[in-house]
């Protein structure tokens, strides 16, 4: 699935929910299903600043693509991470850098988060972009 197709899939999934509580339930499910993240990678240099919960993000280059794995101690944040990792992991740095991350607005995620968590989300996006630009 291309990056664009993946984003459209997520937007469609979220459009099924009318209530934000239902969207949260979905994010919680995604968070619980997120692939395990190794304990030894929960290091300070992988910790993303600006989140109320703790978020770790690991990025590795593999065959020209960036592979992300991530974790958080809060499950809704894990759900958001799951969306980001699902969309951007396995893409080339150029693909990531040319994307505008607007699908997060399309599903209403940005404006529906508290300011502290919105900052956390922005920090995650910035970190993903930074990893991409470091590996161009």
């Amino acid at each position: 699935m291309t990056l664009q197709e993946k984003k459209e899939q997520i937007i469609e999934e979220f459009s099924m929910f009318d209530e934000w509580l239902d969207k949260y339930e979905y994010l919680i499910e995604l968070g619980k299903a997120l692939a395990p993240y190794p304990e030894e990678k929960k290091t300070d240099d992988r910790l993303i600043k600006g989140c109320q919960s703790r978020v770790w993000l690991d990025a590795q280059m593999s065959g020209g693509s960036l592979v992300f794995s991530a974790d958080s101690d809060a499950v809704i944040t894990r759900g958001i991470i799951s969306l980001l990792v699902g969309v951007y992991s396995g893409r080339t740095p150029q693909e990531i850098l040319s994307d505008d991350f607007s699908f997060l607005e399309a599903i209403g995620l940005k404006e529906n988060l508290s300011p502290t968590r919105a900052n956390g989300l922005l920090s995650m996006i910035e970190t993903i972009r930074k990893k991409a630009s470091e590996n161009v």
Partner: protein
Amino acid sequence: MNIQQLREQFPQLSRTVYGKPLVYLDNAATSLRPQPVIDKWTEISSERTANLHRAVHHIAAEATEEYENTRLKVAGFINASDPSEIVFTSGATHSLNLLAFSLGEAFVRQGDEIIVSEAEHHSNLVPWQMLCARKGAVLKRLTVDDSGRLQAELLPSLITPRTRIVAVAHISNVLGLVNPIEEIAAVCRKNGVLLVVDGAQGIVHQQVDVQALGCDFYAFSGHKMYASPGTGVLWGRKELLEQVPPMFGGGEMIETVSWESSTYAPLPRKFEAGTQNISGTPTLSPAIDLMRRMPPQEDVKEYVYSTLTEEPGVRLFGTTSDLSLKAPVFSFAVEGAHHEDLALILDKMGVAVRSGQMCAEPLMDRLGVTGLLRASFAPYNTLSEAEFFVNSLRKAISMLK
């Protein structure tokens, strides 16, 4: 006045969030504003805007009278022995920074000691850390036990001949426990140590009599006691306030100024440099009037306390066998559910609570948590709101399990 009449005084209580009635349980951070406070601010802004004390014109005289009457009212409210002991500030944070600077300049030398409780809000910790760094003084910790209770009984063993200041909250903003200020004050007095009390929560939940408490300084904010944000008070014993230098220099705080030096105005203006919060500070007056008329809170405290202590998976901090020593401030952790997730879900149900470290990181470290959820109630919160909070919390927990 009954609770319904009280609620009608607070316009924000009738608003909705996400189409649901707002249940505002973040009062320990900021209380809501009652109509008389809003009216006072508007009235001064539209009719009595003028700088204080100096000008001869009529409006300045009116504004000054209003401001000084507020000082009289605050002095009476906390039973200060003299209105000149009331210094208006921008809030408890300003009051405590002023103290840490001014007491530090007057009384603290290299190697002296400051004792601070480990349950303090950062505003009653960081200014003392800054003082210690500036003067080469030593910061010592008055500990809490596993439930969060302040171990005041350890204070005598911490005090040495080098101890100058003890700083402690009247009521912890996280735990809601009332600290034994009278006992602590007796120990301080016996040892010739100054006692600074952060009364940001205490002024809201206790009938404060600064003379009976026996402390030397008491600091609080207007925004937690229904007055305008950006207002606050520092009360201090007159003989001490007279001995210490001001933190800010500027207009209003001087007696004479020559090129070489200045002499300072008498109390309290020595500490009130620059244009004051002329619209905000007088709102303390209608806030105090309302506090004096507030009906006793519904049985919210007993209900929430007993529910949270018995709720499976919920770990409430700041427990006590005597609920008269507990303010309706409840901080807790939920097994298997992150405080931020819970707060986010509660928010979508219309319930405003606080999550995180509540500006008390050392206390979080001591309690062994990365953060907590806090629900803090005001007299306008009803028992049915408390029940709605508990039911919403249960639903949020089950969503996350």
